[in-house]
């Protein structure tokens, strides 16, 4: 029965090629447009570490000045000061916690054909790797002793290892960063969480850093953040690096891993106690406002999904509605034109159900072909977005979920579009249409 209906549908569609093209084209363009915008929105709002979402917490402390808040809407700083970050690391009140920032160091090699190069380096404690489940190809993270003694060890990301050592196991070899020898202890597998949830201050959809080195090298190498650095407060007594580290400038990302809600509440209490103690020392002039955010809360807090993307999803669904109204109108007109034929078939005994099914198959054909064509258009649309929008390579992509969603959207939309015309047309009393018009 289905095949028979399918054949009837194809025959009917072939009879009116221009109209059929118009209907399929309208569905395809509507689906293509909404698939493009929805795919961008979908991957921008992805949580790359969903499975650990309620264990990882971004920490905010309101260390800002008395007169005006950090953010115009009164929200606390999104990064922490060196003093507070180090104090929280020393206290070690969570099972795991991490303090880190991004810096730049010059890489030099003995290869004569390779120019010196400026690398993005994450300066971090070793818990970074276990907390964020960073996968290793060779070796592993450095140990606690390397953290304590500020040893010159480095973890390379996959791309950098490919570039320097052709992808071979380079553990134990050395590289020169700012003219200091660093021993390689680990090489990562390909790892590119998008959005880059652990540091949303500096390009949320950028690549992770090229290499990682122990945090305590900050003092001996006088490392600065190459990312966002915001300051308030009285000018330091002198311009030394020490007084910069002691200043109220915020430039570090602090995360705590808290496995249960009880642990989270305890940690919040600990933060409040810490800040109250600091208040006694004359710091933290603002009202107590410490916050813990899960990864997904943190992504939302930092508006990772661009507002343009939200607006485009809204507009493209209205656009899809116009395309569907257009198709409903055309299908309806087409079915009504066949009123005579329907009347005749009803008169000779075809039930409403049989006819309804037949017309629904016809609209289904329009929907599926429009949908498939729409996914193709959506895929082309995403290539267009990647070319238009710099830095969108990580998120202007379609995954299987999106392909499924858009196909479903196409079938659902065209079924809905076909439902009304099919229902309308089988309600026609046969007698009228057997008469001459």
């Amino acid at each position: 029965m289905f095949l028979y209906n399918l054949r009837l549908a194809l025959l009917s569609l072939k009879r009116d090629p221009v109209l059929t093209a118009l209907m399929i084209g309208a569905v395809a363009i509507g689906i293509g447009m909404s698939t493009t915008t929805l795919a961008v929105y979908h991957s921008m709002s992805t949580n790359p570490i969903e499975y650990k979402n309620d264990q990882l917490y971004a920490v905010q402390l309101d260390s800002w000045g008395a007169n005006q808040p950090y953010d115009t809407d009164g929200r606390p700083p999104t990064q922490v000061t060196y003093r507070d970050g180090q104090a929280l690391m020393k206290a070690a009140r969570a099972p795991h916690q991490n303090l880190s920032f991004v810096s730049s160091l010059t890489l030099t090699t003995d290869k004569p054909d390779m120019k010196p190069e400026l690398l993005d380096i994450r300066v971090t404690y070793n818990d970074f790797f276990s907390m964020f489940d960073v996968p290793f190809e060779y070796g592993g993270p450095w140990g606690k002793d390397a953290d304590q003694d500020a040893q010159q060890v480095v973890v390379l990301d996959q791309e950098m290892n490919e570039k320097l050592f052709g992808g071979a196991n380079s553990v134990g070899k050395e590289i020169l960063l700012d003219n200091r020898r660093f021993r390689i202890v680990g090489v990562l597998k390909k790892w590119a969480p998008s959005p880059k949830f652990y540091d949303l201050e500096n390009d949320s959809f950028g690549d992770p850093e090229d290499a990682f080195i122990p945090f305590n090298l900050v003092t001996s190498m006088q490392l600065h953040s190459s990312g966002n650095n915001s300051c308030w407060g009285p000018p330091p007594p002198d311009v030394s690096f020490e007084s910069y580290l002691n200043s109220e400038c915020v430039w570090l990302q602090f995360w705590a891993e808290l496995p249960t809600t009880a642990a989270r509440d305890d940690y919040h209490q600990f933060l409040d106690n810490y800040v109250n103690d600091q208040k006694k020392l004359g710091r933290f002039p603002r009202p107590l406002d410490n916050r813990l955010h899960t990864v997904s809360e943190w992504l939302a807090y930092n508006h990772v999904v661009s507002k343009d993307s939200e607006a485009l999803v809204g507009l493209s669904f209205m656009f899809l509605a116009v395309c569907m109204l257009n198709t409903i109108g055309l299908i309806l007109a087409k079915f009504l034109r066949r009123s005579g034929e329907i009347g005749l078939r009803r008169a000779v005994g075809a039930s409403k159900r049989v006819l309804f099914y037949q017309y629904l198959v016809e609209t289904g054909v329009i929907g599926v072909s429009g949908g498939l064509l729409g996914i193709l258009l959506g895929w082309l649309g995403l290539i267009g977005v990647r070319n238009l929008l710099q830095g969108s390579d990580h998120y202007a992509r379609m995954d299987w979920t999106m392909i499924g969603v858009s196909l479903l959207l196409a079938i659902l939309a065209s079924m809905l579009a076909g439902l009304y015309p099919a229902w309308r047309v089988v309600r026609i009393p046969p007698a009228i249409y057997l008469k001459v018009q």
Partner: protein
Amino acid sequence: MEIRPILSAMLRNKTGAILIALQIALTLAIVCNAVFIIHDRITQMARNSGMDVENMIVVSMSAYKPEYNADNAVKTDLDVLRGMPGVVDASYSQSIPLSGGGWSDSATDHADPHPKASTPMGVFHMDEHGLNTLGVKLVEGRDFSHEEVGYIDQDKYTTPKLAIVTKAFGEKVWPGQDALGKTFYEGTDGVTVIGVVDTMEGSWPHWPGFERNIIFPTVLEGSYFRILVRTLPGQRDAVLKQMEQKLTDAHTGNFVLHARPLTYYRDHTNSGDHAMTVMLSLVTALILGITALGIVGLASFSVRQRTRQIGTRRALGAKRGDIVRYFVTENWLITTMGVVLGSVFAVALNYWLVQLYDLPHIAWYYIPVGIVSLWVLGLLAVLGPALKAAAIPPAIATRNV
């Protein structure tokens, strides 16, 4: 024209009319708002930067030799660049204009370590060639002299004593007064204004305060620094090509990290706006096309359905013009219903967009212009089927269809 019979004919086939009217309503809402956003973005991208953006190059240099001497490096590189043919001028610059990243601080008109309200602004550090390199216009006071430029280690930074400011900065800190010769404060550090420049778009084109900028006569020495170069019109790319070799030959212990046209940074900053205008233009074009084709399709159907009626009317004495007028009027009625509803939709959609963005409300004239455009679109779309209807010979009425 008799509207009554047209209306009653339309009421007998409500669905088709309602579908078209709804389509037109949504189209009006989308098109008005899309064009409004496009206009907003294009205006922002096309505004006068006050600088010679098209002819500028940004050179980023980084040190790698242990014996690297930061003191000489900037000066040597600047000398090399200024001596190149096709180069107008070159200056050290801590920030890149229009790049979306830079140095900001805030100022007050009196010394106060904890000011209650202060004016945020963009901060540039350049040498005495800065103004000429940027191509900004000095409207009052004077430029920096060679002796006034301080070369300091970037870890030993203190607020300089002199600055050149933009007019917009002066107007905000000292409303209604002349900024020249006045002193502003960053906390307790006083800075004297020695010159005022006209328009200069700062580092953050998307920040409402983008025009408020100050320039300090300072070169921050360190292992990483940037130089801005301005070339003669049309010679930018040629200079860019030779630059890297020239700087490498100078052997100052540092290397060219990258040398890129300033337009590269500007386009990067604007890439989101550019993408948005392209997407919205595409949406606008496609939706108008689809709506027009929808009108053509449905009008053709209604012509075919009424072939006998049309034939009868013609046989009873109706002229071709009457038939055309019938369909045009019918379409006009539907379009009008659509645009009335669409005006409400347009305002509602704009309300949502205003909530979403910091966008101003849509200007009122977008809606009447949109209404007229859709009237014209509807008219053009229906004209073809209407003319076809008028061509139906009266004899058809006597035949069976």
